[in-house]
């Protein structure tokens, strides 16, 4: 009954988790903004990780199979290329601020989708949304 919307919900959950992982990475970079030799990290884009998860996740080859839970996508963290300061640090506060704003916007979007899906399900059950 809620097949389609639960798939969207799973994706929205993964999207929110990905945004949180990005936020954690940005916070870690900024906390090490003045650490000599620290290499800034970044999280791979959502499209890449979500696609990647498909390779390793449970597959649904029959209609009766339990839906593969993709919400526990491990966000791939990799080193961010960039110019290093004389002390070997590659963190740029400006770039981190941009990444933080993107993470915030992505998280808000994921929550908005989840909220509106909740409304759709409630409406289909005949309750006031």
């Amino acid at each position: 009954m809620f097949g389609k919307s639960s798939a969207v919900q799973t994706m929205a959950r993964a999207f929110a988790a990905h945004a949180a992982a990005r936020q954690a990475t940005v916070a870690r970079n900024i906390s090490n903004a003045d650490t000599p030799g620290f290499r800034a990290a970044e999280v791979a884009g959502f499209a890449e990780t979500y696609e990647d998860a498909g390779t390793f996740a449970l597959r649904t080859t029959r209609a009766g199979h339990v839906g593969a839970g993709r919400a526990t996508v491990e966000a791939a963290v990799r080193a961010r290329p960039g110019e290093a300061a004389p002390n070997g640090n590659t963190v740029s506060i400006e770039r981190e601020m941009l990444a933080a704003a993107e993470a915030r916007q992505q998280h808000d979007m994921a929550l908005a989708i989840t909220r509106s899906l909740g409304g759709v399900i409630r409406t289909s059950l005949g309750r006031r949304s």
Partner: protein
Amino acid sequence: MADLLQSLAHAASGMEAQSRRIRHVTENIANADTPGYRRKTVEFRADPDGAGVRLGALRLDPRPLPMIYDPAHPLADETGHHQGSNVDMVLEIADAREAQRSYEANLRMFDQARQMTASLLELLRR
């Protein structure tokens, strides 16, 4: 949620490190005219477990102390010189500015992670 709480911890460790740095800068500036004072520096290290930043041991700047000519000074030797401090004001001010900038960036990250947690919990309240 765990990631968001972790980013709060990262930001907090960053703020702690930067405030410790500011503290040493103010100690250095306060002692800029203290004879024989060596400026304090503290080393930043990335936490091996990935939990933000850790502070290394406090170190004293090994640069040679300048000899100041002042025969009237109680510490002056037979040639009329005494040791000054190796605090460089320009360096300290630049350090303080950098620490302040990084502290503010950490604070903003803390605030943003807190707001994201709050909006996540807002979903449950409906």
